[in-house]
């Protein structure tokens, strides 16, 4: 013999013990007890030896129903009713053959009742007894027999497995180390939870093993799943001999015919007391025919002939097992093969009436001819030889995967089952310090979800025969789930409500609800701080696509400085910005919560759709944040975030404040393309939706009024600020000057993107005017841009190589060094919405010369904090440079005034207060009257 044989049964019925007796589906349980479970107990009772232990899995719903006290009366009533019918039948039937069958039933039902009463109606006690006698090995399945691969979360799987094990332990007094996967449905990840819950082995379909990666040498050898669960495959060919409707043993002509029940054939008046009270004809259990063959004329059932066939079939089965084992090649090094036959327990007795007798015959015959083993024993002996493989999704259903439980007839249920799973986890996460009543309610909620998730409902819908009941059950559990959920959310749970809901299906009362809140959610809850915003402080959601280190223009700097200053003032600031590689998704920078999000298409070729993708991501995160953080307002910067800003404003009904840093119209000197038109429209929408608009210069205010017709009173001008600390340099010497000329030369520094509107062409002209009379005046221009080469050539052509230097990119430190140690900074811009560089020059304590354009015009007060020149006018620029060149005292005066503005008007602290004032005008904070 090359290998072992093991026999496994799985007993399961969905939970159908309704609160009110008489439900049609309750009969499923009565029939299974009568025809399968009690005859199986007889088999155990009659067998003397314990050489041939088999394995029986009992599902938690079945265990709970078998243990229910209500069952005893109801079942006895059922049996007594059948007795009455048998009595009636004895005088009703006429033929000798039929009388024989009736007297067989009479004896059999007497014995059934006797067994039931012997065990005091507690069949679990019977199975437990035979486990103790070593005749049987028992294990269990998931809490409600859910098709585990179709659950949503790990917690859902854990609940199903943990409740299953707890329930079994409650009824059997020990924890099982084997576990029956409902429908043998496996998928990667289930093994992890099983292992963590103490399970060591389970059962799968042969197809699971055939599809292992790497491919196994023999598909009848158990394997370890990656997480260390031994997977025992069913031997399909051998098992088919029993379950196959056409070719299997149960189809033998001598066996009892299943469908011709007298419940359907007798006169209604005669039978009405023995069928469903509502007059629905049902199986009575009394069937008088044998299968006979493919004919409508069925012959009478002859018990003795059927039992002879049982013996023959058990012999045949032993023979085919031996055959299957002999097919195995000699396998010296690996774990030995195992022919495992596994079936639904109800197949034996209920579907195949003679099945339990066949099992007894098999156990008897196989005792000496087969090496029987239990899965547990197999592992004990051979675990060292079992190999590990990756197993993919599979089940024992039609075609080996999920199509029985997922098809056009039943797919709709998963949307609802998943939602219940999510809601359950949500309720646990939201209230982690549950009061006693809430705890009870959550447990009931879990029950309702689990009862709805039973694989039976999807299975019944697939069959399309009695799907009505299955649909009604799902609706029922879903409805009660939602009622209870609302009660928990509204804090309106009462003991009466819980009692009412719980008594519908008193199920798994023995189980403790485990903690299903993720570590992350526990952490978030532990971080909860009581809101301190009882006064002037506001909680602001700030949206900006740019934020350091993602610096494209001046926007990043602005939002960075503003957010930090507002946080310093005591406001809670949450910035959501776009992700950059290498930066964390979340960090707290000087009190500012910075979240960096990535759109689902972070490399979209089209910038416009890239921004759309970013907005969806911003909104998604903001919605999540709002679950925990109560925002007072949304502050959006520029059009790129307008879609999410508008969406969130509508969703939360919060005031929206928009800061407009620049406009598409201004940047392009008009709107020329479709895309510019779309962006222009987005800007308009953002301003339209905003409660108030902030701009940084009167220049921008005029632009918005002129181009977008924004009413004057909707716009606040708050200039940009500057942080002097960020303009400091470690280099105090002017040693860099040697690169360009002498230490005592007059150095003018400028910085900006090298584009036409920055006016560097004018600067070159000015240099040309000064060159001959004042060769010691030098111009240093830092920055990159499309005009860089053009300007460099122009400098060469005009022989200004010793006067004008375009030095390209400089680091922040270099910038600060030049700015602090030069004699003047100069900004010759033609268009400039704000001109933050001018402030940086002021903060570096260097005199500033700037053109009278845009925001620069606002900042510079001529002769007070700097000097102003006519934009685009080289002569004007020359004159002002010379004023400064010739008057050292003026320089000192300008720098002092400028510095005092930098530390007041342009300090971020000041700006934060002003911005907060705008925000506060529009947030409806409750007014605290104090004194309770």
């Amino acid at each position, binding site marked *: 013999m090359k290998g072992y044989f093991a026999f496994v049964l799985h007993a399961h019925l969905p939970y159908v013990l309704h*609160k*009110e*007796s008489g439900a049609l589906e309750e009969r499923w349980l009565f029939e299974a007890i009568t025809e399968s479970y009690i005859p199986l107990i007889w088999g155990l009772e009659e067998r003397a030896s314990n050489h041939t232990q088999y394995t029986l899995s009992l599902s938690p719903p079945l265990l709970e129903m078998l243990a229910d006290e*209500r069952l005893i009366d109801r079942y006895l009533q059922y049996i007594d009713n059948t007795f009455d019918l048998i009595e009636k039948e004895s005088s009703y039937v006429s033929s000798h053959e039929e009388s024989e069958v009736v007297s067989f039933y009479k004896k059999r039902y007497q014995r059934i009742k006797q067994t039931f009463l012997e065990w005091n109606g507690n069949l679990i006690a019977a199975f437990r007894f035979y486990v103790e006698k070593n005749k049987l090995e028992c294990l269990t399945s998931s809490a409600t027999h859910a098709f585990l691969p179709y659950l949503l*979360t*790990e917690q*859902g*799987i854990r609940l199903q497995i943990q409740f299953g094990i707890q329930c079994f332990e409650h009824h059997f007094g020990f924890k099982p180390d084997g576990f029956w996967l409902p429908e043998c449905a496996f*998928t*990667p990840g*289930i093994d992890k939870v099983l292992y963590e819950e103490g399970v060591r082995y389970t059962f799968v379909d042969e197809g699971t093993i055939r*599809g292992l*990666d*790497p*491919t196994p040498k023999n598909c009848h050898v158990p394997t370890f799943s*990656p997480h260390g669960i031994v997977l025992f495959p069913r031997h399909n060919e051998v098992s088919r001999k029993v379950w196959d409707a056409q070719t299997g043993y149960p189809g033998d002509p001598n066996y009892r015919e299943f469908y011709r029940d007298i419940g359907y054939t007798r006169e209604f008046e005669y039978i009405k007391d023995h069928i469903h009270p509502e007059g629905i004809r049902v199986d009575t259990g009394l069937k008088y025919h044998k299968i006979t063959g493919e004919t409508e004329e069925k012959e009478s059932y002859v018990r003795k002939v059927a039992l002879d066939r049982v013996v023959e079939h058990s012999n045949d089965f032993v023979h085919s097992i031996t055959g299957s084992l002999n097919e195995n090649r000699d396998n010296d090094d690996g774990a030995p093969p195992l022919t495992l036959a596994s079936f639904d327990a109800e197949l034996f007795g209920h579907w195949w009436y003679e099945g339990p007798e066949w099992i007894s015959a098999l156990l008897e015959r196989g005792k000496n001819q087969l090496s029987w083993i239990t899965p547990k024993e197999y592992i004990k002996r051979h675990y060292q030889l079992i190999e*590990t493989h*990756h197993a993919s*999704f599979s089940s024992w259903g039609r075609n080996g995967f*999920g*199509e029985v439980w*997922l098809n056009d007839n039943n797919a*709709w249920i*998963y*949307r*609802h089952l*998943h*939602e219940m799973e999510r809601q359950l*986890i*949500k309720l646990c*996460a939201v209230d982690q310090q549950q009061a006693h009543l809430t705890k009870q309610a959550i447990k009931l909620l879990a029950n309702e979800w689990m009862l709805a998730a039973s694989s039976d409902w999807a299975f019944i819908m697939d069959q399309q025969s009695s799907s009505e009941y299955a649909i009604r059950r*799902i*609706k*029922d559990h879903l*409805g*009660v789930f*939602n*009622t209870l959920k609302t009660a928990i959310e509204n804090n309106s749970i009462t003991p009466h409500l819980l009692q*009412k809901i719980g008594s*519908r299906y008193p199920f798994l009362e023995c189980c403790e609800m485990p903690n299903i809140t*993720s*570590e992350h*959610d526990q*952490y*978030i809850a532990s971080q909860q701080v009581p809101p301190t915003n009882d006064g002037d402080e506001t909680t602001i959601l700030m949206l900006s696509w740019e934020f350091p280190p993602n610096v494209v223009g001046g926007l990043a700097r602005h939002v960075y400085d503003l957010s930090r200053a507002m946080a310093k003032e005591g406001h809670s600031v949450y910035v959501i910005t776009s992700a950059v590689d290498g930066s964390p*998704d979340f960090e707290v920078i000087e009190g500012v919560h910075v979240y960096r999000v990535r759109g*689902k*298409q*972070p*490399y*979209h070729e089209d910038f416009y759709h890239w921004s*759309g993708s970013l907005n*969806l991501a911003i*909104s998604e995160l903001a919605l999540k944040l709002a*679950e*925990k953080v109560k925002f007072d307002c949304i502050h959006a910067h520029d059009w790129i975030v307008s879609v999410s800003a508008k*969406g969130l404003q509508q*969703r939360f009904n919060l005031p929206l404040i928009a800061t407009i840093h620049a406009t598409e119209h201004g940047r392009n000197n008009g709107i020329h393309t479709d895309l510019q038109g779309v962006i222009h*429209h987005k800007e308009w*929408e953002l301003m339209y939706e905003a409660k108030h608009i902030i701009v940084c210069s009167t220049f921008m205010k005029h632009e918005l009024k002129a181009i977008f017709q924004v009413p004057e009173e909707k716009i606040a001008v708050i200039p940009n600020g500057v942080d002097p600390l960020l303009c400091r340099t470690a280099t105090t010497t002017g040693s860099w000057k040697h690169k360009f000329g002498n230490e005592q030369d007059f150095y003018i520094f400028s910085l900006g993107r090298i584009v036409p509107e920055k006016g560097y062409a004018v600067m070159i002209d000015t240099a040309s005017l000064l060159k001959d009379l004042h060769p010691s005046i030098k111009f240093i221009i830092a920055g990159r841009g499309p005009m860089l080469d053009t300007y460099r050539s122009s400098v060469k052509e005009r022989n200004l190589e010793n006067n004008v230097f375009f030095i390209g990119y400089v680091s922040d430190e270099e910038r600060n060094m030049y700015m602090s140690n030069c004699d003047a900074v100069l900004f010759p811009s033609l268009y400039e919405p704000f001109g933050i560089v001018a402030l940086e020059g002021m903060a570096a304590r260097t005199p500033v010369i700037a053109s009278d354009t845009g925001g620069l015009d606002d900042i510079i007060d001529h002769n007070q904090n700097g000097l102003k020149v006519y934009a685009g006018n080289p002569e004007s620029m020359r004159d002002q440079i010379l004023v400064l060149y010739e008057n050292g005292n003026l320089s000192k005066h300008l720098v002092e005034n400028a510095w005092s503005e930098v530390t007041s008007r342009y300090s971020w602290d000041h700006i934060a207060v002003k911005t907060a004032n705008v925000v506060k005008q529009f947030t409806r904070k409750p007014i605290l009257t104090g004194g309770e």
Partner: protein
Amino acid sequence: MIDEIVLLKDKGYSVKQIAFEMNTSIGKVQYRLKKYRQLQGGDAVKGGEEFGQAPEIPVLYNNDQLTVLPQSPQCVYAFWEIHTNTQNLVTHHLTTEWCNLMKQLKIYDVSDLIFDGHHAHQNFVISLPEMTNNWFVRDLEPNRTYVIDFGIQTCDGNFLTVLRSLPIETPREKVEGNSRHHTSVLNWQSGSQKNSEWYEHFSTYSYYQSLKS
């Protein structure tokens, strides 16, 4: 009388049994019960079948979710829901009413890739009829990892992703020469990988998933 009926009813007796116990007719018991239930009108437990008609199933939950379940080596089932808020965002971004947008599923084969939202071994698109919230995606390859996007075909010919599923692995069908996970299993066994390199279908669901503190 009614108190006794309700008591027996709560014990799980059928109307017939109650009638028998109380030595009265079924009709009388039913009548009393009906009256009693009418009086109890605003019962808090609606939805339990024994508290009346089972409720209708919610049509939507106003969630953003796109879930994919495997059916077979060639077929997966996708179902989704788009929050009205998200619909509004997309409408705003594309300046087109939601009902006039062209909805699609885009299926990416991302086997053994770290998917960045764009590159995949291959992808294909299914145009969805209006009012559709689920689809059986067929003609897939066994033993591959897929990601599915629900998105919009924009009028400028771009695809804008609205929702993305978690990766899903189609089961293996071939019985010979499976070796895709061979190295991963060895790495896992030897402990050189802390987390499994293959995709496991379940993750711990955190309600405050994207929140940090």
